[in-house]
């Protein structure tokens, strides 16, 4: 079923339940995101894509990457309320990962410099869940997941042990917007998540995964790299 909604004053017809962000894109309106990827199910974790959605004269802030289009919805993607809140979200992200170049660039672009929150220290992971979803939905092995909750939440392999299902494809490394997954045996900079994949690690195979018997399909790797390049900051 098609529905009609208004985004920033422009009218658009889309299939019902299309995420607002997709509808906005069709109008050429871009909304900042960190945890969104067209090839993956939306997750709504970074909160950067918030917009103001109106029903009658009541409005609420919603995440546009997973908010479904409904008949008669009016959306503002850059109202004062949106910009203010988005700035605060960015401040929180910057407070969490002050050393991540991509986050710093994005913050600068949004005019966020001073951070009014206490620094959390050497974090690189923003818990966007892209790696978890990519490993599940693109690669289909679910080698990693979130663990714990609240401030202890992190991404890891079950029990933090070497995974016996990870195929070392590197998809998680490519899709991670903060570059915090290192495919290496050496511990990286502080706060990095190290995936020690032994001989399976991308780049560490002396034969570039070209052997007849190699489980890693080169075409698949290339496809992944291309598909994922678009979300890297």
């Amino acid at each position, binding site marked *: 079923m098609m529905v009609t909604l208004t985004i920033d004053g422009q009218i658009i017809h889309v299939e019902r339940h299309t995420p607002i962000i997709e509808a906005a894109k069709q109008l050429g309106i871009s909304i900042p995101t960190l945890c969104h990827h067209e090839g993956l199910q939306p997750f709504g974790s970074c909160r950067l894509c918030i917009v103001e959605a109106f029903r009658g004269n009541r409005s609420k802030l919603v995440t546009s990457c997973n908010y479904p289009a409904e008949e008669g919805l009016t959306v503002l993607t850059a109202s004062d309320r949106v910009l203010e809140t988005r700035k605060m979200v960015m401040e929180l992200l910057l407070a969490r990962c002050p050393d991540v170049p991509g986050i710093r660039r994005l913050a600068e672009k949004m005019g966020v410099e001073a951070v009014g929150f206490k620094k959390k220290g050497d974090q690189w992971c923003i818990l966007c869940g892209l790696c978890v979803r990519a490993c*599940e939905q693109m690669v289909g*092995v*679910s*080698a*990693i*997941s*979130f*663990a*714990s*909750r609240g401030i202890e939440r992190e991404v890891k*392999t*079950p*029990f933090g042990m070497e995974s016996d*299902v990870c195929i070392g494809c590197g998809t998680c490394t490519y899709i991670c917007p903060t570059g915090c997954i290192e495919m290496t045996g050496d511990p990286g900079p502080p706060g990095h998540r190290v995936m020690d994949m032994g001989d399976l690690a991308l780049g560490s195979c002396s034969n570039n995964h070209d052997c007849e018997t190699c489980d890693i399909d080169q075409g698949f790797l290339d496809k992944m790299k291309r598909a994922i390049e678009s979300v890297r900051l």
Partner: protein
Amino acid sequence: MGFEKVDEILENYAYKHDALIGILQDVQRLENYLPQETLQYIGRELEVPLSRVYYIATFYKSFSLEPRGRHIVKVCLGTACHLNGAVQNLEQVERVLSIREGETTEDRMFSLETVNCVGTCALAPVTMVGEDYYGAVTPGRVEKILSAYSTGSGSAEDGKD
């Protein structure tokens, strides 16, 4: 431990994926915690990725991946309990058992936890031992309540609500 009991539980839930939480709850009741091998076994049997089982098992506070005592003492620190002196009760439990919050006694009889509400605010301050509720607890009653559990597996009928 063999996995016969776990098999039984899995059968009770007809190996349904969406019953994972219920399965883990029942399995935890067996040993009061979720041993790693058991979680691995459940993942294999249900054909659910281990990462998913691990995610669920670490998400909910009621699951423990560490061995815990036979009796879990939960001191409620919710608003109503807090206002009625729950902190003093907690300190008294810590003294009596010689463990801190989150720890287990050496004899593996008791583990101590705090919770933020057990839904019985009218009985504040509330302390739970296993599945038993104790209301209007005072530091003076703590030792008596706990001693009934340390001697046998029974509960202190006295003052149980």
